[in-house]
């Protein structure tokens, strides 16, 4: 007769959970990918207009936001290293830094969009509607894509906030940090999307 060892089955499935997040990430890639495709086709159709409209965008703020998000990706990745090494305190500090950087991104976005609104450049404005077709399309895509991305930044902040709470309550530690890892993956996706948004909207003038 075989002796049966009583394995305590974990309630969570680390690999399955990670797979789930990756599958969700694939859907997000197609979501933004679809928007990029719209951009690609209309850029091909209205090259001059896109070129002209893009000159309205502030490359400095765009670059600054890119740098901010890249650093935030590093801090969230470092937070995983910290939790794996059992350093919960450092993990929390790094996650807090990530949220701060995300908020810096949002503040920049606020000023950037605010500046556009000052010039009456917003979806549905009479100024925008009187622009050449291609330029109107460019701004529509600009607001849609950066807006949807900003929404994802906020969702990411919530996920990271929950992660911090879980670590504080000792529900996440070096033996179980799946939620943190998945929140980190989501955050890297947010950064990944911006890595492509930035050059296509700000740099191809």
């Amino acid at each position, binding site marked *: 007769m075989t002796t049966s060892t009583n394995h305590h089955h*974990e309630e969570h499935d*680390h690999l399955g959970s990670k*797979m789930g997040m*990756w599958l969700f990430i*694939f859907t997000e*890639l*197609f979501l933004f*990918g679809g928007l990029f*495709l719209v951009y*690609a*086709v209309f*850029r*091909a*159709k209205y090259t001059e207009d896109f070129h002209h409209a893009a000159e309205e965008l502030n*490359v400095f703020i765009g*670059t600054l936001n*890119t*740098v901010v998000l*890249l*650093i935030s*990706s*590093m801090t*969230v*990745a*470092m937070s*995983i*290293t910290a939790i*794996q*090494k059992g350093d919960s305190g450092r993990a929390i500090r790094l996650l807090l830094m990530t949220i701060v950087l995300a908020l810096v991104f949002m503040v920049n976005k606020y000023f950037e969009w605010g500046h556009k609104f000052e010039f009456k450049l917003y979806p549905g404005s009479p100024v925008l509607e009187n622009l050449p077709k291609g330029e109107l399309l460019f701004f529509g895509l600009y607001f849609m894509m950066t807006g949807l991305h900003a929404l994802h930044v906020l969702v990411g902040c919530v996920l990271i906030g929950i992660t911090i709470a879980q670590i504080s309550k000792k529900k996440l530690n070096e*033996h*179980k940090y*799946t939620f943190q890892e998945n929140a980190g*993956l989501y955050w*890297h996706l947010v*950064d*990944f999307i911006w*890595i*492509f948004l*930035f*050059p*296509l909207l700000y*740099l*191809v*003038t």
Partner: protein
Amino acid sequence: MEKEHISSYWSHGVVLTILLALTALSVTMAEFHLGALSVAVALLVASVKGTTVLTYFMHLKHESTFFKAMVAGVFIVYALVIVFTFFDYLFR
């Protein structure tokens, strides 16, 4: 939970440095008037940055081949979507 590979803090710092350098490159290249090539160059640099984030920050390098294959597959499918869309658009 199985023993997972732990990336060092230092390695994350190196990856960030590479990403920042590529960002600087991207912004610099935008200054040159490359005409039709400018989109290709921008996308190329962005792709290298994106791959770096996927490989190191998202830990794909240390994941099983199955994950790597899934991610590669998704990008291939997406590339096909773009190609076929343009087959339609360009030859209407």
